[in-house]
Structure formats: C-alpha cells, structure tokens
C-alpha cells in the first residue's frame, strides 16, 4: 500500500493512504521517517511522526507497514540504552556521530551477538503460549525463553545461536526463536493479578520508614523544579531491592542521562555487588528529542519491563518525568486540533494515564511464576501547584504519594519529602512485613516518630508567639528531638557514600537511638533536672563511648 503526503503540521503528517488501521506504523517521505496513525478518515490518515519533520515535502511517498509500534524482546536488552522508539543509542552514535540524525533505523538488539540456549522441552511435547521452553544466560540472569504460541514441538536444540536465529521448530513447520516482538501499547498477558504485599526497599530512610513502597505498587513523586525528584528517582534506581530496573528519562535533561550512565557503569548494586548497569535498561528521550517519540517512550519501557516480569523477576520502572509525557500528549492533541480539556490537555489524559499505571502489579505469569512490576513516576507540576491536571490524574492510580516540598528543598533538606501530606496506601501491609522480618519494635518506633513530628509542628506555632524562651522545658525537648529526627534521620545526602543508602535494619537503629535519648531526657526532666543539664549528660555519655 502506498500513497503520498498531502499535509504537514509540526509532528503530524496527513497522507492519502486508504485501508490503514489506527496505531499502524507508517513510513513517510523519502527518508522513511517512522510514524503512527492517530486519526483515520475515509480517504486520508493523520500520522504522528516520531522524528523531526523539517524537510519533508508535499507529495513524497508514504507506506503502511500493517503493524503497530513494536518492541523487540530477547536476550541483550539488559545494560541497553535506547531512545523512545527502542533504537540503541550507542549504535546510533557509532553510525551517525554525536548528533541524532533523522530517519535512522537500527534494530534494538545486536543481531550478531551469540547466546547459549538450553532447552527445557523435548520434541513431541505440546506447549501453550507463554510456556517456558528453555533458557539463555544473560549476564547473571536466567533469561527464560517462552513459546510465542501454542503448538507441538518438533525440534529444540541446545547450543549457540545468534539473536534472531532459530532455536527450533513446531511440528507445523513454524520457527521457534528466542526473540520476539510485542506491540508496546498492549499490556502483556498474565494469569492473574495479586495484591502487592512485599516491601520494595528503597534505601531511602524517609520512604522505607514512613511511607514504604510495595513491589508491584505505584508511587508518584510530585515536586517543583529543584525539589529533588531526579535525585530521588536515581537514588532509588541505584539501591532498590529489585532484580531489574528500567529507567526512562522522559523529556528531561541530557546531562542527567550522562550522569546516570556514568554512575551506573561505575557503581555496584548493594544487594548483589555487581555493576548496576548489568541490571538496568535505560530509555532516554530527552526534552530536545522529538515529542512524539517522548510520548511512545514510556510504552516502550513498560513493555520491556513486563517482558522480564514474565520471567518471574521483580522489575522496577522509574519514569522522570511523567508530566513531560502528558505534555507530549497535549502537543500531539493540539496539532490534531482536538477539543482541549483542562489546561489544554486532551480529555483522555486521565484514562491514558490510568491505563499505563494499570500495567504495574504483582502477577502470576503465563508460566505460573510470580513476578512484579513496580512504578515510581516523578511529576513536574507547573509552578509547583499540585492541583493541576497531571498530578491529579496520577493521584487516582497511585498507591503512594511522596510530595516534595520546595521550602524543605530551599533549606537543603533532601529528600524534601513532606511528612504531613505524603502517604502510602501500602503502609499497613508492609508494616506487618517489617515487624516480622526486621523487628517487632518497628510499628511503635514509627508511631513515636510521627507523633514527635506532629507535636513539633503544633509547638512551632506556639514558639512563634511566645518565643522558645517562654516555653516549657518538655516542649523544648520535643523541638530538640524533632530537629534531630529531621537533620539526622529524614535528611539523607545522596552525594555521601555512607549516607546515600540505608538498609531498613540500620534505619530502625538510627531512629531508635534518637527516640531512646528523647525518652531518657524526658525521665530526667521529670526528676527535675534542667533540659540543658540533661542534654549535656547525653553528650558526656556519647563522648565516653
């Protein structure tokens, strides 16, 4: 099927092709730029083009491909760095140079790399779609190969093969390969969804202790610029207790991607000691790269994440920032002259967002193992105003809300997670887990920590009226202890090697020490010792240690 370009407006191109389907990939122009059908009319189609459309001419050819946007899935994705369309950025660098070139196609996976395949099924066996038929060693990961469809196996050979080479065949003659493609906008199937219940340990004290996340859960991190969204996302990407991380730089800074790539190549995963990059897939579609590819980037990423989830892994997807995705949606919608909703966003913003976030979860996979896909999404509200549509749309699907506070950030209290407005719906379930796995002290310590922070807030108002001098000693003690909690516990320096990551056991120790000292002084005050003296006793004890 081929036709011609009859209109161009920014990233959207109108073609006179007939018989296309919605979301089908169309190659437009002599340069064969990739685009996706976003609107169909009887004798024309509107295509959202993933690349810069400058230079495209009226009358240039356009051709349908009969397939929607696909991700290539197979061994070799790990450590990969892709753009929003899953093009491998290092190969584009080798071929096109330092700057991105338009119309450059490149397969996501290196097709000449060799893999060792070990079959787990014999000739003559019947397999269902999604059933495991063998495995490949991908770095330190057991990469399960599953049947792309049901059938009887005719042949399955152990040995080395190149990526898309055949590892066997079905009785009806069909090929079996360890590599497959999947339409990125369609969630991959699983048997059933389970409720999240296991903790997703982040190594960030304020999160693990006060607002714990769950494997298979979703969390959002909204905050104005400079409040620490990116550093928090990157810290979690480094230290989270998961098997695999997919990190999407969605419409943000190029230098941040350079920073992430450099650090992840040097640093070790604290849980396994291996290089972080070995467990990471990066999707980088920075703010100056094409907007339509930015829109696609989160789908490309989540499809790769689901693929590893289906092997029974715990996968964490981090996106920085989901607001840039929403803005891409808005730019495309407005170039289609759709009726705008709130703040110019299309009216389907909330349902698209919900559809994306629904792809998180703990699942029993098609082959019966348990895997999980967790999401942590940063949100960049204009002017730091959380009533805006994107934050609100995210809130509906999010299980945890880590609100970043500009006033904390300005005084360099990082992570600037506000301890009154944030919440985690996983709190209760995870609390039980920590109580059993770590210490029965956990719930009480958490309770007392919260209480002190709340009392501090109330007392601060009093202090503003009467001054600290005019307050009772017991109240001044509360101010003192709450300050210690803030400075020594909640604050965590991402740039300090010792501080950047704290396992939950250590978090509990730290907070317990502060709370114990608080109690000791409380007792001393009851014995009529002054606060000043009681504090000094503590320092002496400390010095004696």
């Amino acid at each position: 099927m081929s036709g011609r370009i009859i209109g161009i407006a920014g990233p959207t191109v109108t073609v006179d092709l007939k018989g296309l389907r919605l979301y089908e990939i169309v190659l437009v122009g002599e340069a064969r730029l990739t685009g996706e059908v976003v609107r169909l009319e009887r004798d024309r189609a509107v295509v959202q083009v993933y690349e810069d459309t400058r230079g495209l001419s009226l009358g240039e050819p356009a051709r349908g491909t009969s397939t929607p946007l696909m991700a290539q899935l197979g061994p070799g994705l790990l450590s990969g760095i892709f753009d929003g369309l899953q093009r491998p950025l290092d190969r584009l660098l080798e071929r096109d140079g330092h700057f991105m070139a338009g119309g450059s196609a490149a397969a996501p996976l290196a097709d000449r790399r060799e893999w060792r395949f070990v079959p787990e099924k014999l000739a003559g066996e019947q397999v269902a779609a999604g059933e495991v038929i063998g495995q490949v060693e991908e770095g330190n990961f057991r990469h399960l190969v599953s049947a792309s469809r049901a059938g009887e196996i005719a042949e399955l050979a152990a040995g080395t093969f190149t990526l898309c080479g055949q590892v066997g065949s079905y009785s009806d003659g069909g090929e079996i390969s360890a590599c497959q493609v999947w339409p990125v906008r369609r969630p991959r199937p699983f048997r059933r969804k389970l409720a999240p219940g296991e903790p997703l340990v982040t190594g960030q004290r304020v999160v693990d202790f006060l607002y714990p996340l769950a494997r298979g859960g979703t969390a959002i991190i909204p905050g104005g610029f400079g409040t620490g969204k990116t550093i928090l996302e990157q810290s979690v990407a480094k230290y989270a207790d998961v098997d695999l991380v997919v990190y999407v730089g969605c419409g943000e800074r190029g230098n941040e991607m350079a920073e992430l790539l450099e650090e992840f190549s040097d640093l070790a995963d604290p849980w396994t000691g291996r290089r972080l990059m070995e467990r990471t897939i990066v999707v980088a579609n920075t703010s100056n790269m094409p907007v339509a590819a930015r829109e696609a980037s989160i789908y490309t990423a989540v499809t790769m994440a689901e693929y590893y989830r289906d092997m029974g892994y715990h996968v964490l997807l981090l996106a920085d920032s989901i607001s840039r995705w929403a803005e891409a949606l808005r730019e495309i919608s407005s170039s289609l002259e759709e009726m705008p909703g709130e703040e110019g966003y299309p009216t389907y913003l909330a349902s698209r967002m919900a559809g994306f976030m629904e792809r998180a979860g703990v699942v029993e996979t098609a082959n019966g193992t348990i895997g999980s896909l967790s999401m942590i999404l940063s949100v960049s509200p204009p002017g730091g105003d959380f009533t805006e549509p994107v934050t609100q749309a995210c809130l509906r699907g999010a299980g945890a809300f880590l609100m970043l506070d500009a006033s904390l950030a300005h005084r360099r209290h990082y992570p600037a997670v506000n301890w009154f407005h944030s919440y985690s719906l996983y709190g209760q379930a995870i609390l039980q887990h920590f109580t059993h796995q770590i210490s029965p002290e956990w719930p009480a310590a958490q309770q007392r920590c919260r209480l002190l922070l709340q009392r501090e807030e109330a007392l601060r108002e009093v202090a503003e009226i009467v001054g600290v001098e005019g307050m009772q000693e017991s109240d001044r003690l509360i101010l003192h202890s709450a300050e210690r909690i803030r400075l020594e516990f909640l604050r965590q320096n991402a740039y300090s090697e010792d501080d950047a990551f704290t396992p939950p056991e250590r978090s509990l120790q730290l907070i317990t020490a502060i709370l114990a000292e608080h109690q000791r002084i409380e007792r001393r005050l009851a014995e009529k010792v002054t606060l000043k003296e009681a504090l000094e006793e503590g320092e002496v004890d400390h010095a004696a240690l």
Partner: protein
Amino acid sequence: MRLSEHTYRTISSIRGPLLFLDRVLQVSFGEVVRVVGPAGEELEGEVIKIDRDTVLIQVFGDTRGLDTGSAVSFFDAIKRAPLSPAVIGRVFNGSFSPVDGLPSYVPDRWGPISGAPINPVARARPRDFIETGCTAIDALNTLVRGQKLPIFSSAGLPAKEMAADILRNSRLAGGGEFVVVFVALGLTHHEYSFYMDVLDEMQGGFAAFVNRADEPVIERLLAPRFGLAVAEYLAFERGMDVLVLITDMTNYCDALREVSTAREELPGRRGYPGYLYSDLASLYERAGRIQGLSGSVTMLPVLTMPEEDITHPIPDLTGYITEGQIVLSRQLHQRGVFPPVDVLPSLSRLMQQGIGEGRTREDHRRISNLLYRHYANGRDLRQLETIVGKDGMNEQDRTMLDFADSFEQELIHQGDQRRTVAESLDLGLALLKRFGLDS
C-alpha cells in the same frame, strides 16, 4: 527534488507575520522562502504548515507594506547559518546580516540553525569548575563547563551588571579564555551599548547577534538559534570553550507567544503556547560537552520574572530545563547588596561534581552546607523577629539573626571586587568561625 526555484503570486491572506499561499505544487515543511513586496522589498519566511496546496508561511522581518500581489519564491532549502571562525569579532542582527559595517565572510560551511539533539550517550558529564569571581556562585552555586545556568532577575534589578561581571571575570580551570557568543533579544539602545562596551574588553573574542527592541519580533526567535549554531560549531568543530549569554529570554518567550497567537494556536498558561517547554528545551539543551571532543558550550541565559513571580511560566519552565538558577532579590538590592543573589531559591545542580579536592578545595562542600543551613535558620528567625521583636528572642537566635545579616553584607555583597574561589571560601569560613558556627 526541484531543480529550479518556483515563484508564486497566489497569496490569499496576510495576518501579521503570516502569509497564506494557495495553489502551491511543490513545497517542503520548514523550507525557507523569499517574499518580494510591491516596493521591491525582500523578506525571508519559513513554511510552517502545509495543507494540500495551501501553505502557511511565517515571515521574518517586518511585513508592513506587503500586499496579496507580493511574490513568494521557494528554493527547497531549510534555514542555515554561515559557519566559520571568521564570525569571531563580528556583530550581526537577528537575521545574521552584519551590522558592524564590515563585509560578510566566506563560510567554512552552512549549518542548519535548529541543529540536532546531542545523542545522550555522546554527552560528557560537565565537571570542570569555572571561576566566575562571584562568591554567591563560586562558593555556593558553582558553575561548571557545559552547564546551563540562568539568572532570574526582576525589573529594575542589576542583572546586566552581574552578567557583565561574570563575562569579565570568568576563568576556566586550565586558565584558558572563553569565546563569548552574545545574543541580545529586544534590548533597548542603552542596554545594548552597555553590553557592547563589556564585550570589547573580552580577551577571547566574541560574536554578537543583536535584536533591538524596535527590530522585528520574529528575529527574536531566530537570533538565539543563529547564536547557538555558531556556538556549537566553534565548540565541537573548532574545540573552543564557548560561553553563550542570552538576554532577555522573557522577550524571547513573549515573541513566541505573539507568533503563536497570530497562528491561532491554542494558548496555554498565561497565553504562552503549550509547546513552550519543548521550544525552550530546543535552545537550552544545546549546552553541553561531548565525549572525546575538547570544546564546550556553557549557557548563561538572563530572564526577567514578570511580577517577580518565580512560578510564572517563563522562569518555571526555564528552571525545569536548566541546571539550576541564580535568583536575584529586590530586598537585597534595596539593602545595597551587589550582586543581590538570594541563595536560598538559587541552585546549581552540577555543583557537586565541580567542587572538592583537586577541583576547588576539599572543605568546599562542608563550608557551603554550613553556610546554607545557618543562613536558612537566620532567615526563618527574621519572621519571628517581626512578631516578638529582637529583645524577645534568646541569645542564640539573636546570634543567628546577626549571622544572616553579615552573610548578606559581607559574603554575598562584593561590589565590583573579583574574588578567587579560595578567597570566597576563606571569607565564608571566617564568617562561620566568628559566629562559632564552624562545626
């Protein structure tokens, strides 16, 4: 591919800088056209929309005097800049025509002005300290080579004096000189001559693209792209360290809004188009370094916050893209502090890599953290002071108030004095010691 140029006289309407042209047979998106008016005046324009044989053209320059009989010629070329080291020492208008009375030069090559995004894996992480001579930056919000760090100013604040000092005083770690690319957008004559005097003193040379307040609005959108195309060329093909000063980005954004309104696009917040973020990113993201290449593009945009509101879309979206911001404060200015930098909302995101042992000094991080913490406390206490009065406060709190005052008057304030980073840090340390806050 067209072999010859095509000329049409089929304009159906003219709206501000926009022309609608009918019955066009061959045209490319983003193509440059030439428009010849009834009096023989020549203007350039760009194709911004194609709908079958109707083409929408945005004209660069003043469209007054054009009529529907004007001729429009197509060449099948996109907007390009003449690239050559000969650009150094020259002054151009927003259309890249020389305004210094000298003839044009023969370019090394022509490059598209919008450039192409740097492949994220090709980027080298910025980490080389730049000494600006300004304590609020060097000690507290350190700038590094390849960073984009804007100055957020407000009407009446001395942003240009501060920018000028940075130009005069900045030194690369290795001692080399910057080449400055100066992009002036909507400047008054007074501001323009102020900057030109400063540029004339630059050792490393400069190239200037100047669009004055009374010159076409549309050239305000072009000038930064010319400037950046030149900057990328000098940096990544000629190995130079380029410092791009763009002022005032607020005028750029207002020009974008004006053009967008004329195109009848859906207005976003405060009337700015919904793509303002992506558009600004297409400029700011051109700063950086590239692995294996020696040059760099460091960017210093200056903007005026309308109504002193940092949540206004211009500073807001800028702050979301740039690697920090230097925020100027009216209170400090009124108290005679120069440069009047409010360090609390200011930030340099790339500071951590640029400081410490072997870069600035091993105690840099500690000093800067302490200064921030205690100054933030002192500032909080000023609110308390307005309620209970200084006499109602305890001694410790009164000390913190005095510390905040001294911090502003002695450390942030430096008048026209250039300080090395060591001097800035020593001064900060001495201040902390004097108040017993150095541990």
